[in-house]
């Protein structure tokens, strides 16, 4: 049954969050340390730097790239990247002729072990609604203008497969180390709403 809306005089969300935490704490079901541990994991330990590490390795090690495209879950697991929302990782390469972009129109499915929690724009109704209908317009609003001859593919993550974009390595990076390359890679490029630019 769909829940009824709560009355207008309902307490604001921050107070309701405090109330829920108090009730669960009194029942011994949660404690501050446990909640803080989970929060800190996604603030400090798991985020786009994980994905950037994978991308930089794929750019510098052709055999790794092959393994990554063949079995994403196993290849990212070589770095220990695994866990919730990463049960089956599929890596899709972008290049000058093929551009892939990922969305979840039904909720906000996202490859947590590689990118952390999704950013606001990914959860925004505007992105969820429109990128499956007018992807070039949406990408342009987000700062990415694709040439007309680029083939665009939009991936709607409607099941438990999590799609991760391997961006194209930019020119002018031939002498850069793996660590330096990882610094260039953005979250947006690993979802497919941006490309990785040449270093300036």
């Amino acid at each position, binding site marked *: *049954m*769909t*829940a*009824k*809306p*709560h*009355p*207008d005089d*309902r*307490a604001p*969300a*921050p*107070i*309701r*969050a*405090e*109330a*829920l935490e*108090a*009730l669960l704490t009194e*029942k011994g*079901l*949660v404690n501050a340390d446990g*909640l*803080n541990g989970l*929060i800190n994991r996604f603030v400090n330990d798991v985020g786009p730097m994980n994905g950037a590490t994978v991308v930089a390795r794929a750019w510098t090690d052709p055999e790794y790239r092959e393994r990554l495209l063949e079995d994403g879950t196993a290849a990212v697991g070589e770095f220990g990247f695994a866990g*919730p929302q990463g049960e*089956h990782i*599929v890596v899709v390469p972008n290049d000058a002729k093929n551009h892939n972009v990922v969305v979840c*129109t*039904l*909720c*906000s499915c996202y490859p947590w072990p590689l990118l*952390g*929690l999704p*950013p*606001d*724009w990914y959860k*925004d*109704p*505007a992105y969820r*609604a*429109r*990128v*499956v*209908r*007018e992807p070039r317009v949406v990408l342009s609003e*987000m700062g990415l203008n694709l040439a007309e001859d680029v*083939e*665009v*593919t*939009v*991936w*709607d993550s*409607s*099941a*438990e*497969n999590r799609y991760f974009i391997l961006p194209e390595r930019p020119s002018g990076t031939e002498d850069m180390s793996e660590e330096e390359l990882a610094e260039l890679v953005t979250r*947006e490029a690993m979802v497919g*709403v941006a490309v990785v630019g040449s270093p300036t």
Partner: protein
Amino acid sequence: MRFGLSYVGISTSCLGDLTRGESVDGIHDMGGQHGWGSVAIDPDEKVFASDWEARAFAMGAMSAGLSGTNLDAFRHALERLHPLEYLADGYYGRWLACAELLLVDHGVLPAGAVDARAQNLLGNEVSEPTETSGEKPQYERNGSGSIRSIEDPHGFAVGDRVLARNMHREGHHRMPAYIRGHTGTVVALRPAAVLPDSTAHFTAEDAQHVYTVAFSSTDLWGSTAEPYTLNIDLFESYMEPTS
């Protein structure tokens, strides 16, 4: 993005018993909708905009376990929120509301307990309910996570033309409205997984094969659509062969 109820100009007190059964054609099924405005990236965004959102995330993430339910039931709880409430407090407001819904439905917290405690925190002395109803679901899981090995032969192969069934199932499922009734091509076989339609309602796992199916933009949106390919993952029972 934030939507207060006053922002959309509707007083919830006038909505009465406006409920919609369990139809899945709800606010969450956003693919293709018009009217949501433009998309912008905030380069300075933090993981959590405020402390309460972080707490709501953590409690939301734990709520399926605490209520004896599962990820699919959590997603279904998101879909069961009233459409105004789905939008009212943003993404983690939704998680908070879902955590409360699952914990009340499955007998962990009394109905109204969170609202009553919140009023007490605000200094309004109200009595707090103590009686829970509902219980944790009893059903068999055959493993952790969602992916399963199954013996069933694949019903479809890469290259097959398939119809996304024009299904209008009550309750939870993962077939967006914008795909239904359209014909696409299987482009990849994915690991079998538990069927969310079943696990969200605790009836069984009903693991099925999953396929990535490609649809042409002009098939979905008409001849004036931008040229692109839409790839989406469909469970085997969502598909039928084209004749």
